[in-house]
């Protein structure tokens, strides 16, 4: 009997381990369980949404991953389902309902697909808060920085592993890059605003490199303000050190990730 029980437990354990190792949709893994992938009546799959044209009316169901801002009864939100990311821009919403949206909250959003400087988003939308919750695991897109396929992960929660901090650089004419100097005339690891014309409280920009190629990342003050850990971590970055970073893959004429977590290697 004992043997039978042991064998049964061993099989059960093996089965559960195999379950752990089973592949989950990109950008949609979860330690506990994946999201509910059934879509309600008239709701698009991510692929149908991706195929829709700009100005088309779209309806999606997704899980709130991060809230960027609320102002004047409009909220801006990053959300995700099992297959991809969404950006609900200036969605009309009361402050009371905005506060109800926590990480993982499932919502149904109907609006119009739009594109602004390459950023794909849903505007002029209406929403309905649904039952259900799911928090996405970040997708490692470090390798995608080089191969140009990063747009596939737009608006998703992503991670960049082992990126190296370079002197913060900016360009005014689109071609010549200059290194931003701090108050002491030294190369700075970060700067406020994209060209260093800002002050504490503004977005923090910094330059990272992967395999010798430089990229611009930022901590978006609307999403994570100056009192947050990530904002302070960005202000403490050191040139030459490597870090693991998490964030949301925003787009502005190219990848422009909003970093929400910085951990030194």
């Amino acid at each position, binding site marked *: 009997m004992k043997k039978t029980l042991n064998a049964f437990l061993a099989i059960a354990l093996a089965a559960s381990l195999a379950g752990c190792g089973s592949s989950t949709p990109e950008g949609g893994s979860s330690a506990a369980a994946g999201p509910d992938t059934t879509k309600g009546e008239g709701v698009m799959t991510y692929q149908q949404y991706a195929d829709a044209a700009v*100005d088309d009316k779209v309806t999606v169901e997704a899980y709130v991953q991060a809230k960027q801002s609320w102002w004047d009864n409009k909220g801006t939100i990053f959300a995700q389902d099992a297959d991809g990311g969404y950006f609900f821009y200036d969605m009309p919403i009361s402050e009371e309902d905005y506060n109800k949206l926590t990480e993982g909250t499932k919502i149904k959003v109907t609006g119009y697909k739009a594109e602004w*400087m390459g950023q794909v988003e849903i505007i002029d939308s209406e929403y309905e808060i649904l039952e259900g919750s799911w928090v996405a695991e970040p997708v490692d897109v470090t390798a995608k920085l080089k191969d140009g396929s990063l747009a596939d992960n737009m608006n998703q929660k992503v991670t960049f592993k082992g990126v190296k901090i370079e002197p913060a650089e900016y360009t*005014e004419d689109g*071609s010549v890059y200059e290194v931003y100097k701090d108050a002491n005339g030294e190369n700075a690891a970060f700067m406020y*605003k994209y*060209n260093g*014309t800002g*002050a504490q409280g503004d977005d923090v920009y910094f330059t990272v490199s992967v395999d010798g190629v430089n990229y611009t990342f930022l901590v978006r003050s609307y999403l994570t303000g100056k009192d947050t850990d990530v904002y302070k971590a960005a202000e403490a970055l050191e040139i030459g050190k490597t870090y693991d970073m998490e964030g949301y893959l925003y787009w502005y004429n190219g990848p422009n990730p909003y970093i929400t977590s910085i951990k030194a290697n």
Partner: protein
Amino acid sequence: MKRFAKLSLCALLACGILTGCHGTQGMAEFTVPESFDETKTHELVFWAKNDTNRTQTAIYEKAISDFQKMYPNITVKIRLYTDYSNIYNDVITNIATNTTPNVCITYPDHIATYMTGVNTVVGLDGLMHDEKYGLAGSEVKFDAPSNEQMIPEFLDECIIQDVHYAVPFMRSTEACYINETYVNELGYELPEVLTWDFMFEVAEAALAKDENGNFAVNGQNVMIPIIYKSTDNMMIQMLAQKGAEYSDAEGNILIFNDTAKEIMYDCAEHGKSGALSTFKISSYPGNFLNAGQCIFAIDSTAGATWMGSDAPLVDISPDQIVPFETAVRMIPQYDTANPKMISQGPSICIFNKKDPQEVLASWLFTQYLLSDEVQIAYSETEGYVPVTSKAQNSDVYQDYLAREGEDNNEHYAAKIQASKLLLNNTSHTFVTPVFNGSASLRQAAGQLIENAIKSARRKETVDDAYCEKQFDSVMSLYHLDQISASAASSEDLGPLPSASKALLITLCIVWVILGAVYAVPVLKKKAKK
């Protein structure tokens, strides 16, 4: 005597409690001190806007440094913003806590809202005309402009309820930046003064496609012939050019009229075809213009350094830039013989403080921002123009204008042409009435155009019923119905509500009882005597 003291105390407390019902009283009205006490130190907070332009930041910093050398008892701490609306929001938040900055770059529309606090914003007429510390006053330590040297059109824009609550800092208007190469390739000759009809005709022609499905004019799969940055301005200027109503000085909202509907129809028609888009829908006009994907980019003259394939400031990668001839024109007109364009740009206001010496220090710094050193340097960073004739007529500034096109940085042709556009058309500029809520009305004006274009692109019908629905919608969204009521403060508000009547009657009774309690014993005492 003891009894009198008690009663007095009670009366005083009652007064305190009752007046407390009316909320905070605000600041005392500022009066110009007899002299500026230079032994007293002041730390001024200055909130400014810099267009994320590094040179502008450097000019502010130099101005502060130069000013502090002349007035060592004053230090100025600057906070830079890139957006007027963020300054506005922060000021509103800080009025409640009495933590406003001392000096602030702003729009008159915004000041009208700041003024809902009592004496929050300093009326500047007394300061401007003060013999010692006024504009070019006898005790001012730098070469400041006189009252007569302020450009009157620009100065008048800062009058709210007959008082100057700001002084202009820089002025700009809107310009149409044009890919003249494409206009010519489409078979058109660019006129000196654009008309809306001409622009829309060229724009529709630019939508023709080649056999590969690309736009024939640029060979690309993207072409948005017209992109308008500020649809607020677009609606306001179109209405003004057509002689239609928008609002009046009493705060009456007059925009919801048939002319506004006609404008919405035009925008919908060209939005639907793809000929017209906006910043909010498609993003920065300059980026599309420079990529050869736009022919008419309408934006502020203060954005001229981003316009054209040789522009010194660029927001797209170099491989996306397409070479073309850039032409700068005034915004399109309905009546070319009587052009009309908006006057805009930053003004400076001063917030009231308990210490009049601190306010005077703020005024001296404000006045320094009007000196030639600051005016000329700052205006040259973009297509701004100085707000004083002193700076405009100076040899330095005239030399700058004469060197148009010498290089693609300081003397970038499109930038200097944009400045000249305003200098030559100052008499054709106008501003809209300022009142508490005029900033919301501006937003509503733009929203009507944005919605008409978006709806047309989404294949909705834009007709009379649609326009009426939009009127109702923006009226509600921007609370314009409430603005009309509150702005017209002289209106007869009707009889007092019964609750107010009851409160006033109760107050009277309390005072009669208090008086009686005091008077009766006194009278009895007198009678005994």
